[in-house]
């Protein structure tokens, strides 16, 4: 999952970035509104976290401009102001949720997780496709109830595929959503991850969870369990 953190307070920005990286996010950061709009338009983020009190351009303005530019990813706003007038204004500008400062990072992660799932059409924190179940809170994957041991990158790739289960996902999509901006990308690595995932999820080759669409990308083929 690729996240943009827009926050002008460096200590908070860095703490958040470090913690989210640990949680498996590809993190980009911006420290003012103009930078945020530039990045928000360039990169297909999975979620954007915006502090409302920004220099140059207010957070509300950033949210408005991103929505005007047809960016549909979920946006979570952070604000020191807890009045309902401010909350309503923030949500009206196009944000999907708000969090009042100071907050626990666990709370932020839970909201981010829920927003990302919701925008991909999942209502529960456990993504289920037939026998494959991914618990996004605990970050574990099981097949028919048996836990599967995945590396952090394997988990990221599978998470993205399962969130968009049934949809075609290109290699480019995967690299964009899994790696940060400055990362040296090598698409062969994705193929390696897919190969390993197939082996781990489907050791006897009966399930065939990940389909290759020749020349275009991959699709998680097991339908979502409603």
């Amino acid at each position, binding site marked *: 999952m690729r996240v943009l953190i827009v926050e002008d307070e460096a200590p908070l920005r860095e703490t958040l970035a470090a913690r989210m990286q640990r949680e498996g996010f590809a993190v980009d950061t911006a420290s003012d509104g103009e930078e945020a709009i530039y990045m928000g338009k360039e990169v297909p983020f999975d979620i954007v976290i915006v502090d409302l009190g920004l220099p140059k351009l207010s957070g509300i303005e950033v949210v408005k401009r991103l929505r005007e530019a047809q960016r549909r990813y979920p946006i979570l706003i952070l604000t020191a102001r*807890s*009045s*309902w*007038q401010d*909350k*309503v204004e923030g*949500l*009206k500008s196009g944000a*999907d*949720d*708000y969090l009042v400062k*100071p907050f626990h990072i666990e709370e932020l992660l839970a909201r981010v997780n*829920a927003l990302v799932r*919701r925008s991909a059409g999942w*209502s529960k924190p456990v993504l289920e496709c037939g026998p494959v179940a991914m618990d996004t809170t605990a970050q574990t994957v099981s097949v028919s109830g048996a836990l599967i041991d995945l590396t952090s990158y394997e988990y990221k790739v599978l998470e993205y595929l399962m969130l968009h289960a049934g949809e075609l996902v290109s290699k480019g999509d995967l690299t964009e959503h899994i790696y940060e901006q400055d990362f040296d990308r090598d698409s062969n690595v994705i193929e390696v991850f897919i190969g390993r995932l197939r082996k781990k999820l489907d050791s006897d080759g009966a399930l065939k969870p990940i389909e290759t669409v020749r020349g275009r990308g991959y699709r998680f083929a097991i339908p979502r369990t409603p």
Partner: protein
Amino acid sequence: MPGRPFSIASRLTLASIVVLVLFLYLTTAALERAFERSAVQSIQQRLKSYFYSLLQESDVNVKGKLLLPEFMPDPDFDRLGSGLYAAVSGPDTEWRSPSALGRDLPFNEAMAPGELRFEGPLKSSVGNVYLLRHGVVFEGHEERPFTYFVAIHESSLVKQKQAFRGTLIRYLGSFGVLMLLAQGILLHFSLRPLRSLASDLTEVEQGHTEELTAPYPSELTGLTGSFNQIIRSERINLKRHRDTLGDLAHSLKTPLAIMRGLLENADQLGPLKSGTEEQVNRMNAIVAYQLARAASSGHKTFAAPIEIDANAEEIVRSLEKVYASRGVLCEFELDENARFHGELGDLMEVMGNLLDNGFKWAKSKVLLTTKSLGGSKGSKTRRAGVEICVEDDGPGIPEDKIDSLLVRGIRGDEQVQGHGIGLSTVSNVIDSYEGQLKIDRSPELGGARFRAIFPALE
């Protein structure tokens, strides 16, 4: 910069002087006119009576020749230039009274027998005169008509008029002065409440008295009542801000002291971390609580009425976003006459927190109802109140917990509906509007029901 407007007293004085002068001028003119008319009428009478006495003394001989009187009805007819003139003209006759000799008077137009004409003032060589002409025939000599002329100089009339005007101006002038004096006394008397109000205000400003307490005339009670309300709410606000600041500073000292203690005895990281975390949470709760208290403004005296519908919809739309995964439906039952008289922020705080609470705890449904309280047409209320009611179909609040909910303070117990900063903010806002918060079970939905009641202003 525009100058200071005239005082009420000088406005009234100026206006009454203008009105009085105009009134006196018109009265004088009307009275003079009436006087002149009656004086002219009396001149006509006088001339007529001279004519009759002249006629009585006149006769004709057998040939029809006019025999004129030997004695004049007034000696002034004999005195040259006396101002009283007579003449007769007819066949073979052209008589002038001695007073008219050598004077050019308009004794020229013959009248038909029995015809009478009174005219004046006419210009002549002796000045303006009033003239009576009368056509006459004598019995047996109907073919020889004569015309009698009697004229009088206007000087007597002018003298009378001048005397009259002098008297009139003296009387009306003193009447005007008396009126102005009375007006002054009246003004002084009527404006006394305003002057005493001004001096009472100074007393309040200087802090000698708390509010405007003296009985004021009914025209001023609206003003003084509102003013007292402003003074009171200002005082309460000031006190609340002072209290909030004091409470904030003092309540932060305890966690700070604990943290300092922890730091000084920090041999191990574990207890330091958990202790600091606990105190940071506590400080955060304190700040949030005091901020909410300070935020509710409670200005209600001159607040413009705010429509509730649009704001409620905005909040619900926001909450539907935030609680999208819960699938809660919010229904409105809004009274279109309901208005909130106060700060928009306060209304948003009350509705936001109550609705948030409803969305958080409802199984599937939240109901927002507003109702206008009192203030219908014809009633004596100055302004209608409003009831904002939020109910849900959640678990509701056990009855034994309701009382503890209404006791203000910070609660960490999020397991029971309504606990937390949100409700204490609502309660603070309602208090500052002298309203009431009622909590019970929703008869319709079965969950909790919160009713924020902002009373009508009497």
